[in-house]
């Protein structure tokens, strides 16, 4: 009895010891800074002098800050790439799931942009979008279309970034769908076929509901990732683009914090971003709960 008690106590100690590093990391590098961010967002923190409490001052400033509105609009606008990417990826996965020859090679080719460095592909796409010599306009030339100078035009800079983002992320989404499709039992389709369902009907009534959890996962992770978009604009439009048309929220935070040293103001934006992501994730959990009822 005593030995058993001793064993359990030892297990308690070691169990806790083994999780101590990540727990400490969480406290020091995430939770403490997060609380500090929230606190900082209510002050006029400039990184040097005192932090004076100014209440909701930063947040009311955000409310009337035109550049912030632009950055927020741009960030949300860029998320139009999410439904485009999901549609294309699902079509690709459906195609690959039929066992056409070269499946492995296609999987690898479509996945290569995902593992490529975002900085390097940003540089490459920036050159591809060049108005005179870029690959994109040369391609459009084949069809007699003379393309714009993509990155220098406030109407085309966001679509250009969306195209690039879809290209970059397509392989990842495709892979998730492919894995999901492979876990759908063939017997459903056979039963549907017996009932006389056509291809579209079995897609709509079997495939689409079965991949719904993955669709959800993709939407949520894409919104979370998309709301933090930064590298592309920092490299491709270092000043925020024509009329600030390609600046994202994180780009603006970065500029305010490390360019202008308006740390309090930048913290307010960071808190705003954090709350946004929190709400998106919360909605996901809610919807997931509902969904499990549906399945039952």
């Amino acid at each position, binding site marked *: 009895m005593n030995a058993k008690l001793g*064993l359990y106590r030892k*297990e*308690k100690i*070691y*169990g806790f010891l*083994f*999780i101590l*590093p*990540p727990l*400490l990391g969480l406290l*020091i*590098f995430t*939770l403490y*800074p*997060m609380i500090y*961010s929230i606190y900082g967002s209510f002050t006029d923190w400039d*990184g040097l002098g005192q932090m004076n409490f100014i209440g909701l001052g930063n947040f009311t400033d955000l409310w009337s800050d035109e550049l912030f509105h632009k950055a927020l609009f741009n960030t949300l606008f860029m998320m139009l790439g999410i439904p485009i990417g999901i549609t294309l990826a699902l079509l690709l996965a459906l*195609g690959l799931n*039929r066992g*056409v*020859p070269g499946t492995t090679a*296609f999987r*690898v*080719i*479509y*996945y*290569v*942009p995902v593992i*490529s*460095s*975002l*900085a*390097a*592909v940003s*540089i*490459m*796409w*920036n*050159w591809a979008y060049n108005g*005179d*010599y870029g*690959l994109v306009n*040369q391609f459009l*030339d084949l069809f007699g279309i003379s393309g714009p100078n993509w990155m220098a035009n406030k109407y085309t800079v966001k679509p250009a970034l969306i195209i690039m983002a879809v290209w970059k992320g*397509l*392989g990842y989404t495709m*892979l*998730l769908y492919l*894995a999901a499709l492979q876990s759908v039992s063939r017997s459903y389709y056979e039963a549907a076929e017996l009932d006389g369902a056509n291809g579209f009907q079995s897609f709509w009534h079997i495939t689409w509901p079965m991949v719904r959890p*993955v669709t959800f*996962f993709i939407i949520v992770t894409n919104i979370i990732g998309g709301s*933090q978009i930064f590298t592309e604009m*920092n*490299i491709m439009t270092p000043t925020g683009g024509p009329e600030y048309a390609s600046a994202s929220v*994180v780009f603006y935070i970065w500029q305010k914090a*490390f360019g202008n040293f308006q740390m309090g103001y930048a913290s307010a934006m*960071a*808190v705003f*971003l954090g709350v946004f992501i*929190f709400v998106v994730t919360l909605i996901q959990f809610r919807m997931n709960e509902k969904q499990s009822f549906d399945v039952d």
Partner: protein
Amino acid sequence: MNMTSRRRVTHSIIFVLLLIGAVFMIGPLLWMLSTSFKDKQDVFALPPVWIPRPFHFDKYSEIWEAGPLLSGIKNSLIIAVTVTVVGTFTSSLAAFSFSKLRFPGKNKIFLLMLSSLMIPYPAVMIPQFFMFSKLGWIDTLLPLIVPGLFGNIVMIFFLRQYLSSVPNAIIEAAKIDGSSYFRLYSSITFPLIKPAVAAQLILWFMGIWNDYLSPIIYLNSPEKQTLQLVIANFNATYAIQTDYPLIMAASIIALLPMLIIFLVFQKQIIESVAISGVKG
């Protein structure tokens, strides 16, 4: 038309569509590669030249003198290797503990860790910057290394899931044999989860190698910068001089290591990504 020939036709159509898609996916990267071998004339040639005549390899020797490319690679390697090696150890140890050991508050702590995944990096980067600046770590690699040493929650989550398929009986039997807790981890659990660890380690390595936001915050002097910052600076400098072959050669250098790692380990990586999506 009978079933098999109809199947063959749809297969061919799908194959052609996938092929066209593949051209669009890989085309820009091939163009990047081809540009890196071009001379000035070919770069601006209309219609585009895909196969340079002749191939110029001199940009690949020139880039090493044009900027701190070598120190960029070295810095990226130092960060990525240190973080992934130490971080994988701490993460897998914690995953073992969360999955196989009993101690009070375990599930609550795990949930706390999971929920912290919701906190985006931009929301904590400003206070983190000041923490590290108080320590005098700005313009050193330490802010990019130290947090990672404490482990990676995504990895812990993934390995914990993976460990649930390892039967508890093995652990219990070893416990009764008087094996120490660390030995349970090092000689029983770890060998069993090696493939999962490897896949996660590679994904993490790639993430650090390709990271841009945190290095740009902490690193100023050219010789301290990571590879991604170095090539971004190449872009800023040489785009004005329109030396695109040079920029593209530098970008290829930044892509190549990850591309090779991916091609070697593509099976494990793809599996790991697929599992995390379906289970997540």
